């Protein structure tokens, strides 16, 4: 009787349960950060790692695609971390932005966006070539997947790629997003990612909204809005270039 009632409350008030679970995760992460790393590894970085780990365990347990959110008791996490509240909170971070800094970084952001799409695309295409893909459609789709996990399937659908190649392109994009989340706080000191200008460039080069949002949060929350602002344009630019310019380039090169 007690379990039944508890389950009813927890699932019925899913979003509230999400707040409680994520709050506990945050507390544990900040405690671990202070206790084991003396604050050197940021609490939010540990929390994001824990989130990914829990998502892995949840995925193994349920066989679903939404990690922890597929467990009915924890479905509220799906609302809390879903697109609506995520976008709302990211936009709210812009409130602390200095318009002067933004104007100064504006041009670099646009340049970074253009470079970012091409660099990731070329990386994806090279790996696909090494693994034996030679047709322009598959190469473009996998390259587009390395741009983001949305650009990949959008491009693949427009070009008529096989579902196997589409799945690979989505996976490449997911790996990219997660790698950015995990690696950014460690790499940040090496690449000078410590000011609004480099954050704008970083957002334009990486482009994966979720990766940039989490990577910068774990590095320095003050940089979040600058990176997310440019990253917001990246997927659209990729969707624009993928089935057009990038595909024509590939067709010209590989027939």
């Amino acid at each position, binding site marked *: 009787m007690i379990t039944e009632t508890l389950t009813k409350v927890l699932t019925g008030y899913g979003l509230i349960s999400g707040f409680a679970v*994520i709050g506990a*995760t945050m507390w544990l992460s900040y405690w671990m950060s202070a206790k084991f790393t003396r604050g050197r590894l940021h609490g*939010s970085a540990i*929390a994001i790692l824990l*989130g*990914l780990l*829990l*998502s*892995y365990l949840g995925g193994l347990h349920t066989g679903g*695609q939404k*990690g922890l959110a597929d467990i009915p008791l924890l479905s509220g*996490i799906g609302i*809390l*971390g*879903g697109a609506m509240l995520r976008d*709302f*909170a990211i*936009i*709210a*971070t*812009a409130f*602390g*932005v200095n*318009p*002067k800094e933004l104007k*100064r970084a504006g*041009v*670099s952001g646009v340049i*970074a966006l253009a470079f*970012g799409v091409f*660099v*990731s695309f070329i990386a994806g295409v*090279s*790996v696909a070539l090494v693994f034996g893909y030679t047709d322009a459609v598959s190469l473009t789709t996998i390259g587009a997947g*390395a741009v983001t996990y949305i650009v990949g399937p*959008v491009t693949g659908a427009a070009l008529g790629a096989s579902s196997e190649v589409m*799945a*690979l392109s989505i*996976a*490449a994009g*997911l790996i*990219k*997003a997660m*790698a950015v989340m995990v690696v950014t706080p460690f790499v940040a000191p090496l*690449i000078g*990612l410590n000011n609004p200008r*480099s954050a704008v*460039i970083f957002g334009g*080069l*990486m482009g994966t909204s979720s990766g940039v949002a*989490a990577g910068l*949060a774990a590095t320095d929350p003050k940089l*979040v*809005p600058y990176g*997310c*602002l*440019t990253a*917001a*344009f990246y997927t*659209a630019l990729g969707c624009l270039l993928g089935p057009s310019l990038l595909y024509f380039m590939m067709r010209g090169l590989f027939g």
Partner: protein
Amino acid sequence: MIIYGVALLSICTLAGLFIGDLLGVLLGVPSNVGGVGIAMILLIFGGNWLARRGLLAAKTEQGIEFWSAIYIPIVVAMAAQQNVVGALSSGPMAILAGLLAVGLSFAMVPVLDRLGRQDAAVEKKPHEPGSAAQSVASVQR
């Protein structure tokens, strides 16, 4: 009132996403074109405009600051629902493609950072009066 801030944030969000979707339709792209970015720009300049006219009370700001502060937990919740199993079980090609894209992009950050800084040094002089006026505006804020 706190709700004024939350409402301002909501209006900026909805307007930005609406413009982004419209741009997507106009460009023939099946995705939102920079909606979140447009919303952020609306909030930055809209908020600045209101603040300069003294229309942004501390309570109003709190309505925005709460959401800005809850951002990291939301990102953790987002991480907790990524398809980690799907991505890792798709084989070495997808993993390598993703990692190489990230590695190259990281390497490009300092390159572009340096490139832009040289431009900025050259261009700085003619813009001097404009940036002075902007710093006055931001001091007032």
